């Protein structure tokens, strides 16, 4: 049934390391479905984004319908359904960062990368042509004391200024 609705070109499988991690994860919960978020995180780390094949595989592993996986993926902003750049830059623009001029940092980033800000339904809008960066706005990153902040993939950068942005972008390997 699911195959008829979702066109899957290449099936997805966890690699060996992630499969081991998944097997460990699943034992933590009395019901399999509860491992949904960590499993999707794991899959996204391997594949880069959540493809229909990923959803199908996760659904099989957790013994739920594909729709249920899709349901979860669309709810949480951290799961991507489109390809993103190698570096995902998340810039906080909630009030405490706004009071500390995050707009200056955002404008500088936009000019420097030559891209717009991604929206949740259009990630390509915020991705650079070479596929290196995706720029997106996020809500409070819980680091208001060192505002303005950005996250580049998993790392947090604090007290940013346009100069610090220049420095940071230069030292990121291709």
């Amino acid at each position, binding site marked *: 049934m699911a195959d008829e609705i979702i066109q899957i070109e290449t099936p997805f499988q966890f690699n060996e390391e992630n499969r081991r991690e998944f097997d460990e994860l699943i034992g933590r919960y009395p019901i399999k479905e*509860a491992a949904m978020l960590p499993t999707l995180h794991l899959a996204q780390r391997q594949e880069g984004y959540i493809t229909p094949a990923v959803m199908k595989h996760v659904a099989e592993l957790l013994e739920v319908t594909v729709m249920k996986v899709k349901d979860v993926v669309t709810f949480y902003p951290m799961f991507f359904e489109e390809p993103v750049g190698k570096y995902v830059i*998340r810039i906080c623009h909630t009030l405490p960062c706004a009071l500390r001029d995050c707009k200056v940092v955002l404008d500088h980033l936009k000019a420097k990368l030559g891209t717009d800000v991604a929206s949740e339904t259009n990630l390509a809008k915020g991705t650079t042509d070479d596929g290196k960066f995706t720029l997106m706005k996020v809500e409070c990153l819980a680091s208001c004391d060192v505002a303005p902040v950005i996250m580049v993939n998993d790392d947090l950068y604090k007290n940013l200024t346009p100069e610090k942005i220049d420095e940071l972008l230069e030292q990121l390997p291709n």
Partner: protein
Amino acid sequence: MVQEKRILYEHLNVPDINTFDVYRQYDGYARFEKALAEYQPDDIAKMVMDSGLKGRGGAGFSTGLKWSFVPKDIEPRYLCCNADESEPGTFSNRYVLEKNPHLLIEGILICCYAMGIETTYVYIRGEFTLGKQMLDAAIKEAYEQGYLGENIRDTGLNVNIYTHPGAGAYICGEETGLIESLEGKRGQPRNKPPFPAVEGVFMKPTVVQNVETLCNLPFIVGNGVEWYTEMGPTYADTREDPPKPDPNTGTKLYCISGDVNEPGVYELELGLTCTELIEVAGGLRGEEVKAVIPGGSSAPILTHYELDTRLDFTSLTLAKSMLGSGGIIVMNETRNIVDCLLNIMKFYAHESCGQCTPCRWGTPWVRDIVQRIADGEGRKTTITRPKFGVTESGRWGDTGETEEIYEDLDLLEEVANNIANVDTMTWNTICVFGIAVSWPAVSYMRKFRPEFEAAIREGKLVTLPVAEATVPPEENYAYQQRFIPKEFSELE
């Protein structure tokens, strides 16, 4: 000046405190061992009740009371530690997770021992990658050292802790939203009752506690209830006769950000005033305080007239605001309140989970109204009502006076109050997200109405001087009724 009282944060900056060995040198796990050796589980629950500890996550509900609702005859029971810190302006849990994760584990162990719980899930925000790594490493060490797992310290106690990553949804900080998310679904809050204490995760009794609340437990057990209750004011709840004590005991990790010179987390006894806190945080950056948000962006704003309000659960509730998660955001005279409200409303419009219609449609609507006002396109009408008085010609008659009606401000209040009514404190939504939207919307608009009116009138954002922008406290519609509580010791 008020001095910091570091208890939870005392050893935060000790090098390598995140490792078991160093943590052990600083009394680590000694309080848990004391609990095992000297107290029965029920004694611990009683100590927590007597300590007056209130939940630090936002609602400020008595922890001891929450524990007492958990049925003891249903197995298994779960503990969910809420580390989904996403309230704008709050950042104290992040430091605990990143720097001193063993303290949290010790707190969890004490809670599990008291409640007979074997499984704990720590729901960590998806963005806290480092915090999750540190906590995972600490949990691993604790297993190796025999403080987690089966038959801990040969007492027959079994405790397992698992971390569970979130994925960037604010609503998962709400306890039932967190539970839904933990079960692998969309994080849409559940109707209450049944409360999580009775039917929570996997439909079993569940205690949901914030990181900071759990971190208080080792100190209550280690130093005793008497020591703990000496910190912070105990008010008299005069609604009852004789007055009932209303404790606001312990310290709070105040997170202060915005226009202060030294933003950061300050651990202080509950009950200091706004002015004192700003002083502790290195003073104001700017000339004068325009507004203070006392408890994360959901809390109603305080004006410069209200800076003497004490920052504790009871005082702020009686001032018609809330301490919430203790995220204090200060704004100086250069800030435009319309602009600030727009920022916050964009946040809520983005984060509404979409489950209840008033919130799903209301939040973007409120955002659009504020956006319109900020863009200089706020709607108003000028109406002419017949008004009897002395006319220009010196006779009695219709004076032809006009009145400006700010339609958008009335609409803003109406829409916000239809999500959740701030005057009656009733909400048309399943969870309290509704009130978290309408509280800021209505309070900013009422208390800083001149600035909103000016933006509509002038067709652009106008930042008025503080005195002109603020509605004075005599205007009751803006402040509702504000009470200042009496301390228990002050009663006759």
